């Protein structure tokens, strides 16, 4: 575990030394400003609208951070050849993958925590209530969803040479799943065979990222989700992240290290 944590630490260090975190803080400031204006309008609809926009911004920026950061990890190791002195130590390729996964996941977790903390404090102070558990569930499930996304991007980065290809393809896939993944079964009902079968198959085969979206619970103050559902969703995320990491390892273990 020492090796995995050491690698994760280097990923986090690289992230803030590459100034990515400064972008994060600018975004955080924007969110704070937007959320800070919540109660000036004195209109429930506008308040909800502003909160909705803030939550969307949190989702988009955390997805971007996760995908862009993860996509360059393995290609950069190969391109800069830093993988050579690393693998000359008693480090396996599986440990490299797990270290990269953990580093990216923790880094996005820190980013999310900062986003939610600012958002929660500002909206809470304006609305005179702070539904901590509701915010915690939304944050936790979003972080779990990002575990799936990060593992998927790591898998992509093994097979696509350029980080830009991995970033674009993964972003399209993630946005596609979030946008229409949950509706595929109802779309399938309106299709003739064999398209109906294919759409159903896709519906049951994709990781349903939209299940982790608790934005409405935060925006409309709908209360807390059943904890059993949260636990099951977390297990679902762990299983999918595990599957993606397994396939990433299968591809990476025999891959030539030269670019």
């Amino acid at each position, binding site marked *: 575990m020492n090796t995995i944590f050491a690698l994760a630490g280097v990923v986090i*260090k*690289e992230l803030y*030394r590459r100034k990515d975190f400064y972008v994060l803080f600018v975004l955080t400031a924007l969110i704070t400003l937007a959320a800070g204006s919540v109660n000036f309008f004195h209109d429930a609809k506008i308040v909800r609208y502003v909160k909705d926009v803030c939550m969307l911004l949190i989702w988009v920026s955390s997805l971007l951070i996760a995908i862009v950061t993860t996509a360059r990890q393995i290609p950069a190791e190969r391109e800069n050849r*830093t993988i*050579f*002195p690393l*693998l*000359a130590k*008693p480090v396996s390729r599986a440990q490299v993958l797990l270290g990269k996964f953990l580093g990216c996941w923790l880094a996005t977790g820190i980013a999310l925590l900062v986003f939610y903390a600012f958002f929660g404090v500002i909206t809470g102070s304006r609305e005179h209530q702070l539904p901590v558990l509701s915010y915690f569930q939304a944050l936790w499930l979003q972080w779990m969803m990002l575990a799936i996304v990060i593992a998927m991007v790591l898998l992509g980065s093994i097979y696509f040479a350029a980080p830009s290809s991995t970033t674009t393809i993964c972003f399209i896939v993630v946005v596609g799943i979030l946008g229409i993944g949950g509706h595929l079964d109802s779309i399938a009902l309106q299709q003739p065979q064999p398209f109906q079968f294919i759409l159903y198959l896709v519906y049951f085969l994709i990781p349903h990222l939209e299940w982790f979206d608790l934005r409405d619970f935060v925006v409309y103050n709908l209360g807390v989700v059943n904890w059993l559902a949260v636990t099951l969703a977390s297990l679902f995320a762990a299983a999918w992240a595990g599957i993606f990491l397994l396939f990433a390892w299968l591809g990476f273990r025999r891959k*030539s290290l030269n670019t």
Partner: protein
Amino acid sequence: MSVIVKTEKLRVEFTSREFHQATKVAVQGLDLEVQAGEVFGFLGPNGAGKTTTMNVLLGFVPPTSGAAYLFGIDVRQPIARQRIGYLPELTYYYKFLTAEELLRFYAKIFGLSRAETDRRVDNLLKLVELEQASKRPIKSYSKGMQQRVGLAQALINNPDLLILDEPTSGLDPLGRMKVREIIERLKSEGKTVFFSSHELGEVETVCDRVAIIHQGELKVVGRVGDITRQHHGNLEKAFLEIIGYQPQPAT
């Protein structure tokens, strides 16, 4: 004496994606043994298969057939690399880290305790004369300084076997002297050093035995003195004769 590095009928082939899947044999039937405490030079012209052999020993490239062992452990097992240090030809390190952070990172990989890490990092920074620059990011270092960081990271686990790939290439005379001093110090401590180099004068000075490889095949292996005596000259003359170099007459 125990065998530290061993290859048995090692063969490595590469299939080119271009040129109609042509197969290139990089190393063929290599049998090599390096004994404990030896300074062993691995020589050959460019493209002879030296780096490929080193890459197999370090687990970067799987052999097509045959086997390679470090300390009797198959090189495909990461644990085989627990007691080795590796210095690549060029400086491939995380350049956003400082020298101290890089050494601490590798120390953590080897599972060293905090106290042991502090002691070794201090000693190594002193050894490679980077104490003053230890808090600066590696990207701000000169090439010689980066090479010295490389040497320090290769020694962080106090290795029993040091694998050096052209350790003095691109270094100034002072840097070369430093590397030579370190190799000699390791030798006096009973460590094994396996290194490739084109600096034959240097090899002649520090190596106990050498192997010469050409076009993937082992041409000769033996004590430096024996080889130079057989060829009635220095190591450079012997090397050129062994690889079949014919000097062109001056026109």
